[in-house]
């Protein structure tokens, strides 16, 4: 039984209201929403994949590419921007050498820009693994990424 089947077995067939919980579970289990997963969910809920994809793209939390082992989300909202998120984003881009949505060659890192994560008074906010990092300075970025790198080696 695949991971997706196992998740789906917890829900009632054809229940449209379970769509978001299912998507959340699948994202947690697989790290992203694959095309295969969306088709699977679609036939389970008897919903069009177009609708599922349309809904999922509305929410920033859902991803449609596998991404790296460490996935970083950087707030690109207004408040974080005023607090200086642009240099942070630039530092991440420079250190990793990739654009948002891309994955490093070794498959270790990926990052994306998101809208507000609710830490406006503590910005710039950055989210990786299960942790929020607040008041991030651009000069801290290389150190932070190096730490994350060694952590991901341990995993």
């Amino acid at each position, binding site marked *: 039984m695949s991971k997706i089947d196992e998740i789906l077995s917890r829900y009632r067939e054809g229940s449209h209201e379970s769509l978001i919980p299912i998507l959340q579970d699948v994202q947690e289990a697989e790290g992203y929403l694959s*095309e295969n997963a*969306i*088709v699977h969910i*679609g*036939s389970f809920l008897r919903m*069009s*994949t*177009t*609708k*599922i*994809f*349309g*809904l999922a*793209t*509305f*929410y*920033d939390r859902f991803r*449609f590419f596998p991404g790296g082992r460490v996935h970083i989300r950087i707030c690109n909202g207004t408040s974080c921007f005023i607090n200086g998120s642009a240099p942070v984003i630039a530092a991440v881009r420079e250190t990793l050498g990739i654009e948002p949505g891309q994955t490093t060659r070794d498959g270790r890192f990926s990052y994306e820009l998101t*809208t507000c994560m609710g830490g406006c008074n503590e910005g710039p906010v950055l989210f990786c693994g299960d942790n929020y990092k607040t008041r991030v300075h651009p000069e801290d970025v290389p150190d932070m990424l190096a730490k994350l790198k060694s952590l991901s080696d341990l995993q």
Partner: protein
Amino acid sequence: MQFTIEVNNRSIKAEKGETILSALNRNGIMIPTLCRMAEFTPTGACRMCVVEVEGRDRLITACSAPVEEWMKIKTHSPRVIRARKTIVELLLSNHPDDCLYCDRNLDCELQRLSDEMQVRERRIRGSKIKPRRDQSSPAIVRELSKCILCGRCIRVCEEVVTATSIDFIGRGRYTHVGPAMDRDFNFSSCIHCGQCVLVCPTGALHEKHYLSEVQEQLSKNDVIRVIQYSPLVPYALANEMGVKYTRDFDRILNATLRKTGFDKVFLSGAGTDILITELADAIIGSETTAGRKPLIVSACPAWVKYCEQFTPELLPLLSTLKPPQQISGSIIKSVVPVSDDRPRVYTVSVTPCTAMKFEARRDSMTRKGISDIDTVLTVRELARLIILYGIDMTNIDPEPADEPMELRSSAALLAEVAGGIAESVLRTIAVRAGGKEADRVAVKKLRSTGIFRETSVTAGGVTCSVAVVDGLKGLEKLKQMLDAGTHFDLVEVMACPGGCVNGGGMIPAGSKEAVRQRTRFIWQTDEQEAVRGPEQSSTVAGLYGNVFDQCPELADKKLFHTHFSKRDVLL
């Protein structure tokens, strides 16, 4: 229950339960709308129709708010007009200002609204949407930068067509309309019916144009150019060109097409006649064999693609006969004589349909890689071609079409409305059984307004039961009945509600009533015409009696059959 409300300091009558908009419109007060579509539940998304109601702080949307007794409404107060103008200005803020080069120039709702609101400058500047032009589909082009996100296409695709091929993708200023996984159209579950094209207010969705291809061929000396048109085309074209349709118009069109540069003009209706004859043969033939299976008509290309994707279990029941356009196409490419200095035949077909552009490109519709129909034009494109070549249709002598497909029966015209093919087949079966015509009362059941209609007709001791699915919404009922074991001899499915009269290549009808009006026109014409069925048509007699026998390719009629197979797309 009726009551009086005050609108612009005058009282008007309103019905309980109706929207403000419908009360206003009934009393001759027009207010602009954009996201609204007749016969759909209102969404109030675009806010073009806002009005001022005394006692309410905010402007409210007339299309969605129910009218109430206490209301004092202002429909054109300075505040309302300013709000509407701002809405249009906001829509234009990220719109590409390329109206002159746009497909819908002079026929665009946004353009009209901006003129009505007297927008004369770009007051609000937004960052323009990144241009993205999806030309992957053979039938429909999607231009994302022109989309104003009214959502009409999405609702039609979901609620009318039931294919649900497109939806809003993303959020905020990145929102756009597209198929699953943001793919291009040709990889999606789109069935090319073109209903979305009919409702798009701007040039964001339009049919793919093949006019330059036609022009190129018209300028060559070494090709024989053949054009055929569907029975509905003259009537639709007259509407599009603003000419009053008369009986002569069909023959005027023949002359016009010859003036445009086509060497031969044929009627696709002759192909429809052959389809009707072959379908009747198949049903009468199956009468004697055991295990009668329902035969599902495959004349509607959008339905065929839908079936291949969504209901592959019905594929074995699908008639293998080619649709009319392809039947006549295969006759044309077999019988039109070529010479040494003009060795190639180029065929154009004019239809009220966008899906036929896709159909003509199917692998199974080609012979040795050469398609029977090279180019498919919609009625709108034909009108443009005629205007481009400067032909005055009001001042031209009528001419007949070319042999061997110079006439069509009125049954072929009837096939352009939903239920028409079924009705024509029943008629032919009745005549074959020795009757004069099919049982009128029974056949009339096929002319009701339901999305699923059925009837059975007994002729010459043989009972034939038929069903008509008018719009893909009726398919659910058909599946239920087939599952329950109900027997039908013939099932006609039309993807567009109302049939080809509401096809994606037609002029937008706008409401069910307008489609019904076109339908009634066809029924009337059918009553008046002399040749009512393929069995009375001299063209059909000539084709079967003479042409097919002389042409080895056509003699065994294998050319009239094709095959369909399951299609793997994201559903």
